[in-house]
């Protein structure tokens, strides 16, 4: 059974600081997704990582994938309040079939 674990589950940080959210998973997969969810809203796709060593960046967020370590990271650079949200990683259990297993989510709060 595939398990996807995020760390930390809660993160409170100050504006301007850097931090990293970790996503570990327990079985082989080379497709990993990051989603963002604002309070009361649905999930929005952030990044799709499709191979070992993949790195994607959008603004202050950068995601990477190490399939050998079964680890993905979401790095936040110089955080701003607008990035406050819950972030989920998800692993594709069946390659290309989009059968996703989600992590528990990381609730990120960025304080002025």
């Amino acid at each position, binding site marked *: 059974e595939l398990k996807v674990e995020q760390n930390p589950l809660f993160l409170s940080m100050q504006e301007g600081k850097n931090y990293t959210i970790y996503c570990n998973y327990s079985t082989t997969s080379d*497709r990993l*997704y990051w989603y963002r969810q604002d309070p009361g809203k649905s999930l929005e796709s952030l990044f799709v990582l499709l191979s070992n060593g993949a790195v994607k960046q959008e603004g202050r967020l950068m995601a990477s994938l190490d399939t050998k370590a079964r680890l993905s990271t979401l790095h936040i650079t110089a955080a701003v309040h607008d990035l406050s949200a819950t972030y*989920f990683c998800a692993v594709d259990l069946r390659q290309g079939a*989009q059968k996703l297993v989600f992590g*528990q989510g990381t609730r990120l709060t960025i304080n002025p």
Partner: protein
Amino acid sequence: DVKVTQSSRYLVKRTGEKVFLECVQDMDHENMFWYRQDPGLGLRLIYFSYDVKMKEKGDIPEGYSVSREKKERFSLILESASTNQTSMYLCASGAPIKNIQYFGAGTRLSVL
């Protein structure tokens, strides 16, 4: 813009009632999914469908069934609602080659 529409944002039902949650997508996607979201557990896959009249169980199908009579519509059915089915339900759709799932706004169901 991809649109995934769930018929209700909030529903309150009584124990034992039959409940229908409807989801419609407008992008001709082959794949459709139903998840439930509970605090600390992330999203868990209930059922998914790769084509009309096709369905496959996800990780937590017990107490649920689905129907997909048309490509754009995927319904989740709670045959006899129970209090432990109180949750947020999210529908998603996706095309295999695009590697992204698009989510609806969610239905918050309370079973009393």
